[in-house]
Structures are given as C-alpha cells and as structure tokens.
C-alpha cells in the first residue's frame, strides 16, 4: 500500500508536469505543424524569469509566476514573428522548422547561460513542507504542482472547447483549408497557438525547477519526455496526450522504483518503440496535418 501510494504520487506529479508541457507541444504540432524543438528552452526561460522576478525584483510568488508566463508568451510569440512566419510557404516546412527551432533553442540556452551562469540555482518560489498520507510523506510541492497543472489544463480545455478562439484553433488543426474558408485568419491562430504553448512551457519550467534546480540545460530532458508523450498519444492529439502524460508518469515512477532511476528513460524509450511499431501515428494519432 505504502509503495503504491508513493508510486502514484510521484507518478501523478511527473505526469502533471509532462501534461502541461505536452499540451503546448501538441497544440503547436496540431495547429501549426511545428515540431517545436525550442520547447525545452521555453521551459528554461520560464524558470529563470520566475527566479529573476523573485530574486532581483523582489516579487511575490504569484507575481513571479505571472512574470514567467509573460516571458513564455513573449518567446512563443517571438518564435512566430521571427521564424515561423517566414517559413510558412516553404515546401519543406516540416523539417526546416525543426532545424530553425533547434537554432532558437541554442540561442536561448546561450543567453540564459551568459546571463545567469552555468551553476545550478535554487528556485526561490516553492512551497515547503509536506504531509503524511497513508504512512507516506507527500511534499506540498507535489500537491501544488498537481493542482496548478489541473487548473492550467482546465483553463486550456475551457479555451479550446468554449471560446471562439479555441474553436478556431481546433478548426485550423483539423482542416486548415476549411478554416480559411470560414474566414479564420489562420496566421493569427498560429500566433495564438505558439503564444499559448510558450506560456504553458514557461509554467511547466517553473514547476520543474521547484523540484529540481535551475540550469540552462534543464529543459532538454523534460522536452524529450514531453515528445515521447506526444508520440505515444499521436502528435497533435491533445486529449490523448493528457492520458498518455499521466500513464507515462506513473509508468516511469514504477520503473524507477522497481528497476532504479537509471532505467526510467530507457524503459520509456522501449515503450515508444513498441508503440510506434504497433501504431506508427501513436495510440490516438491520425497521420500528419496538411497545410493549404
């Protein structure tokens, strides 16, 4: 029972973080066709923005979190304005944009490295303490992450399902040509999606940095895991990605517990290879999106 609770809690915490950064990736892929390799850098920008807000500007935690979200929105929108916008007409958009976002990631990483140094920093925004449930110590931090993720997911779900903008985003990712015919300004939707993806990544970066430390390369590993979640779910499938994020979080926690931390990632890799052999477009996937 004890073990079970422990795995469940750490699995859900991991899953929650994966879910948040996965939604951003998934939206960007589904609606814009961008496999955003700069997602990890977005995480880093968010984490350091919150740090800078709290340490240099003396901001309270909610304010620093808002600053991180703002920074995420800025890098997301910047990605559209400075990179994606110019490549939309390209015949090899799908691969070219991967390369361009890789370049962006390097730029962000270098700037953060030169501004804050390579030395790992402690994220000042965090919730201390914990509680014992069923003889298992559960840090408040985990609960905080879980709650924040769920709030963010509900917010995104609400925007996508209930608002005019959300409907347009879904429309663009399902049928770009038809969305255009409905009068949807597709490029504005691209901008919106990348901005939302930036905000989500930045928030996920703050959460991540509270349970580990801040480092200029900290976004890479979670990004890869978010990719795995996306691949398992099928790129662009947001709801599938949510299920997959939590399932993989729990799976990883269980593997780490039973086989050791070392095999968490290899086991996940094995899982995606098997998944992709079984279903090349993911469990809930549906081929790639075509642009118009």
């Amino acid at each position: 029972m004890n073990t079970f609770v422990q795995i469940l809690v750490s699995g859900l915490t991991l899953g929650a973080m994966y879910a948040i950064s996965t939604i951003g990736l998934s939206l960007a892929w589904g609606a814009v066709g961008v496999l955003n390799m700069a997602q990890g850098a977005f995480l880093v920008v968010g984490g350091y923005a919150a740090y800078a807000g709290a340490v240099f500007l003396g901001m309270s935690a909610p304010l620093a979190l808002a600053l991180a979200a703002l920074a995420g929105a800025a890098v997301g929108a910047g990605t559209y304005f400075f990179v994606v916008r110019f490549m939309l007409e390209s015949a090899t958009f799908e691969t070219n944009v991967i390369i361009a976002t890789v370049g962006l990631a390097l730029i962000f990483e270098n700037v953060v490295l030169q501004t804050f140094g390579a030395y790992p920093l402690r994220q000042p925004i965090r919730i201390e303490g914990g509680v014992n449930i069923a003889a298992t110590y559960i840090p408040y931090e985990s609960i905080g992450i879980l709650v924040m993720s769920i709030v963010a997911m509900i917010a995104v779900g609400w925007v996508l399902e209930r608002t005019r903008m959300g409907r347009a985003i879904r429309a663009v990712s399902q049928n770009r040509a038809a969305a255009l015919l409905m009068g949807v300004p597709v490029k504005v939707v691209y901008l919106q999606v990348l901005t939302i993806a930036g905000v989500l990544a930045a928030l996920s970066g703050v959460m991540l940095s509270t349970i580990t430390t801040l480092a200029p390369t900290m976004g890479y590993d979670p990004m890869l895991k978010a990719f795995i979640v996306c691949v398992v779910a099928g790129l662009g499938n947001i709801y599938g990605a949510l299920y997959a994020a939590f399932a993989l979080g729990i799976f990883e926690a269980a593997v780490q517990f039973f086989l050791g931390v070392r095999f968490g990632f290899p086991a996940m890799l094995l899982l995606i290879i098997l998944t992709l052999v079984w279903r090349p477009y993911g469990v809930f996937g549906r081929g790639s999106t075509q642009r118009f």
Partner: protein
Amino acid sequence: MTMDAPALLEIRGLVAGYRDHEVLRGVSLTLAKGKLATLIGPNGHGKTTLLRCVSGLLRLTAGDIRFGGTSIVGRRVNNIVAQGIVHVPQGDLLFSAMSVADNLMMGAYLPAANAVASRRLEEVYGLLPALWERRLQTANTLSGGERRMLAIGRGLMSGGELLMFDEPSLGLAPLAIDQVYSVIANLKARGRTILLVEENANRIVDIADLVYLLDDGRIVWEGAPHALFDHQDLLETYLGS
C-alpha cells in the same frame, strides 16, 4: 440574359492557374442578385478554380472580380467572407473531430456573423432538421448526405449574400442528391444568389436561371438551361450525354 436586377457578382477576363499551368484563360460571367447560375463542363477544366478565385483562396494572374460593385481582387479570404461570399467546397471539408454544432458555429466565425449566431443556428436547424437531431455527434460519424447538409448549413451560418456550391451532388446516393437540390431550390426561393458547379445538366435544368458552359478554361456557351438542351451538339461534345 436578364437585366432586371443589378449584378451581384461580375467576373471580367479572369486568368488564373497553378504554378506554370494555366487553368482559366479569360473567363467572364455576370450573376444578378437573386439568380442562380450554373457552371457546367467536363472535369478538370477550371470550375473549382473559378470558385477558389472568387473566395480568395487562389490569386489571379489577370482580370477582375467585382462583388456588389467593388473589386475584391487581392483581398484576404476572411475579408471576402465578411463581404458576404460563401464557398461550400467540394468534398465538404468538415472539421471532422468537432461536433455538428461546433462545425456550424465555425461557419459564423467572423464577428458580424458571430453576433447573430444563435438566431442563424435556429434558421439552419429549421432548414436542415437532420442536423438538429445530430447536433452533438462529431462530424465524422455522419452519413454522406448528412455531411453535405452540414457543409451547406455551415456555409449558411455566415449569412452571406452569394452562395457558391462546388458539386453538391458529388458522391451522394440519388435520394440524398434530391434532398440537396431541394434545399438549394428552397434557398433560391428565399432570394439567395447562387453560383452552382455541376456536371450533370439534367439536375439543374429546372432551377438554374443561367448556364455557363466552361471548357478548357473558357466559357464556350452561355444561356438559359432549356436552350442548352436545344444544342445537342454541345451536350455531346462537352458533357458526353
């Protein structure tokens, strides 16, 4: 040609194509308010391309398109939709993972239409009651005929003055085709202006006011639908019937 109503759509010397392949080589046509014109002609000779030019999806090489007296050449698609042009595309292009209701709401995406969306929704459900029954289902669960109705309904949601239908009978069973055409006749009776692409001349003979025969990027004949049947040679040459 009847000149009793002012021209809503006027196309002059339209030239357009894809990359180095010219599809339309100087097409001119006029559609008066409240009338129904049909474009007929063999496949791959520019009918769809013409509609794409009007709705702004394809840039023209030369020529002019006027809607309600002003030129719409070079405008963005969303602007053209806002002007009141509805393009119901070939193959429906539905948002397949969205519900029927959400698909319809997408038709009223632009601000002006969005403001009166709930009233329009009622009108569309009134005109196409099958959609009301299926409003919560996702579009990919619909039958072919229902999908076509949804595509039409979605187009109506924007409240445009000019409706363009690209082969609304394509791929449907005879019964569903009859339903689609009765909807179109109904719309015409309500005073909508309609540009219809069709391959089968027999289907439009009773509802069209005017027929344009498009072949190899040019209008080769225009006139009343009944007159077309007097030209057996045209029917044989272009439509194989």
